[in-house]
């Protein structure tokens, strides 16, 4: 039996310990905000925060996060008002929106680590997250806005 804390709640799993966290979250725990885009750590759609770090849940097993704290988009802020989320809305970032949970989690992790990233640092930190719709200009602006308030 693996125990893991997800968005502050204790969850347990007694199935395949190697099950990717992504599928545990989506199919077993019903937290569908985290998305499947590639399954190979190539797109960032499945990004969640484990302790304080952004990880790709598609290549992280449930076992890997045993006893640790996982935060998904659903748990980032109780009302969805994390500065990154607010900035995302202010800049009207999303098109289809499918990549955005992963983008937001990546950006939130970046700001925890580096509260005032430069534009180059933003571009570097966000480069693991693909947006097929091409919202990059706005993503960059929104991360900047979240970090500086302007």
């Amino acid at each position, binding site marked *: 039996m693996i125990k893991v804390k997800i968005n502050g709640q204790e969850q347990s799993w007694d199935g*395949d310990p190697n099950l990717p966290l992504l599928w545990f979250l989506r199919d077993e725990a019903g937290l569908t905000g985290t998305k499947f885009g590639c399954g190979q750590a190539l797109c960032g759609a499945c990004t969640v925060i484990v302790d304080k770090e952004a990880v790709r849940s598609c290549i992280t097993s449930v076992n890997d996060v045993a006893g640790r704290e996982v935060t*998904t988009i659903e748990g980032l802020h109780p009302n969805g008002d994390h500065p990154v989320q607010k900035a995302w809305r202010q800049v009207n970032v999303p*098109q289809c929106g499918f990549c955005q949970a992963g983008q937001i989690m990546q950006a939130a992790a970046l700001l925890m680590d580096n509260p005032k990233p430069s534009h180059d640092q933003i571009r570097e930190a966000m480069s693991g997250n693909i947006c097929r719709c091409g919202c990059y200009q706005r993503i960059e602006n929104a991360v900047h806005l979240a970090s500086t308030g302007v």
Partner: protein
Amino acid sequence: MNFIDNPRKLHSFEKNIRVEKVSRRSILKGLGITGGFVLAAPVMSRQAFAYETGAGKMPHGVVVDPRVFVAVAPDGIVSIVAHRSEMGTGVRTSLPLIVAEEMEADWSRVKVQQAHGDEVKFGNQDTDGSRSTRHYLIPMRQIGAAARTMLEQAAAKRWGVPATEVKAVNHEVVHSASGRKLGFGELAADAAKESVPSIEGLKLKDPKDFRYLTKGQIGIVDLHDITTGKAQYGADVRLPGMKYAVIARPPVTGGKLTSFDPDAALKVPGVEKVMQARGWPWPSKFQPLGGVAVIARNTGAAIKGRDALKLVWDDGANGKYDSVAYRKELEEASRKPGLVVRKEGDADAALKGADKVIVGEYYVPHLAHVAMEPPVAVADVKGDKAEIWAPVQSPGGTREDVAKTLGIPEENVTVNVTLLGGGFGRKSKCDYALEAALLSKELGAPVKVQWTREDDIHNGFLHTVSVERIEAGLDKSGKVIAWRHRSVAPSIASTFAAGTVHQAPFELGMGLVDMPFEIANISCENPEAAAFTRIGWFRSVSNIPRAFAVQSMVGEIANATGRDQKETLLALIGSPRIVKPAVKDLWNYGEPLDSYPIDTARLRKVVELVAEKGEWGRQVPKGHGLGIAVHRSFVSYIATIVEVAVDDKGKLTVPRVDTAIDCGTYVNPERIASQIEGAAIMGLSLAKYGEITFKDGKVQQKNFDDFQLVRIDESPLVTNVYIVPPASGTPPSGVGEPGVPPFAPALMNAIFAATGKRIRALPIGKQLEA
């Protein structure tokens, strides 16, 4: 993304032309939600436009009826139906916003309700071809105006005053003479009893009174849900007792399963069942390929189980498909005469007599859509009833195909449309919904079929592959006097009918035969090309290779004559006029040429606008270059300037992009900008990396490592978008697709300016490194 007039046209042929027998009753059923406008009114005309569009020719046409699209609840909440699919264009916001505008509803008290697939009720629902605003601006305004009029009539009756004395303003009706007011909610029940006014008599708002339209201050309706993870896409649907499935499909189009061994798969924890999935021979439109399905308690287990399957396939005739050899065949075909599809003057003679002939052979390989959300669908089939939840661009077509595939009446099929995590034309093909329906029927349980990224790349409906060969003949003064363009590419029609070797009129009409240059001798030809995999429409479709070829050739002519690119382009476009190509049945994106002519004044205008705003001719640092391109597609006009920087190692970056679009009368400039920004990224992705290749009939790429997309660190530093203010009464035109085609040629022209290297084959790949 469209097929002739619509994706289902060939399907209709199969059935010997569908006779539209629309029951008025079913249209009058109303929304079935609280309060609101229901029933008992004269039948409205289905179409009454200020200008003619092709909307009426789409399957099931247009329904203009407030009782179908609008409901007002006693608490004042106004529900407006979005009958088109949201895949990132903002249509789920923009169409209801048009209704709210005309109706004087307060947007903060509007709820958008997504229509299920039902074209008899809602009219055509195919969300493709950059058509939604173009076809629905006027109908949505009429619906809103009719609803407003009914509310006003109800208030006037209540007060015993003439209807002309009352006016709906921001969610209430006011009688200014007496200062009385009634909220929409208070009037809902009475308004429902009013008869629906005739369309002809409706008074539409004066655009100067618009609160929302053309303002672009309204965020998309799903913005909060998207940023909090609550937005529901196809894969997010969960039903009690639902099984999770992935399918191993034939690696070669048209291949068949020879044998399989499920034992190892069945040992994977969580795997419950392995079963054969029904497939159809190629080509058969959107029917599933078949293969072996692994059913499990979660998607992760299903994928692991599938990895453990032992499978033997018979690849069939397409097992020889090889992209290297095929490209040679296309090139050879392009060097010989082909079916003449446009002829003006005598291009052969003029080329022979030309002072100089410039030849360009341009190659664009297969592309995969790779929408961020791979195909996925949930189905629950019970007896002769089916319910589907899926991200589909064609809810009505999906319903039709599910019914046909299961052999049940269409009325027994409910298609619930989730948000689409991108579409780009891939999700106009509902094969994944059919797969889910078939599996659910067999299992007797709800099933989710999830495609992996590898499935998406291996078993898609790819963008065609093409060689576009252009010969331009110049006289002594450098004027182009002859133009021969041969386009060789397998047609989308090959996915519908075996043996197709020529492109369909809708493909020829995308930048080949509608070429707008003022040249005396023109020959457009279409040599034969057979298909060896499934070809489908991909955002912008044939406009991608055509704009790439034609606009690159403009750059080549500029170079050969030592002239400025922009001046060369304007000289080729020539005088402001309406182009009338000598083409039988010219395909004009399904629109009548009267309302949507090929207007070179508008084409010139976007070139001039982008040149002015984008500072064409500005000094750029060493190693940088500017390129320009213009293209008319989806009846819109778009010009783009790209600034590129190429370093000594051949690494390119894009400091700045400027795009001007004339899409006629528009609704939401903020979403237009986002579409154009995104189009630049998609254009850059396909130019830098986009290539699907085949060997032994199999796609050689598998995921984002070998089918790469542009990431944020390579994206343009800034993309500026300029929207041409429309002349009053200009019909609206497309936005979703037109932004992509001019990008790659503008980039190639910029690369040439920066480096002197002319790239004629996409993707760029390592071509700049040498």
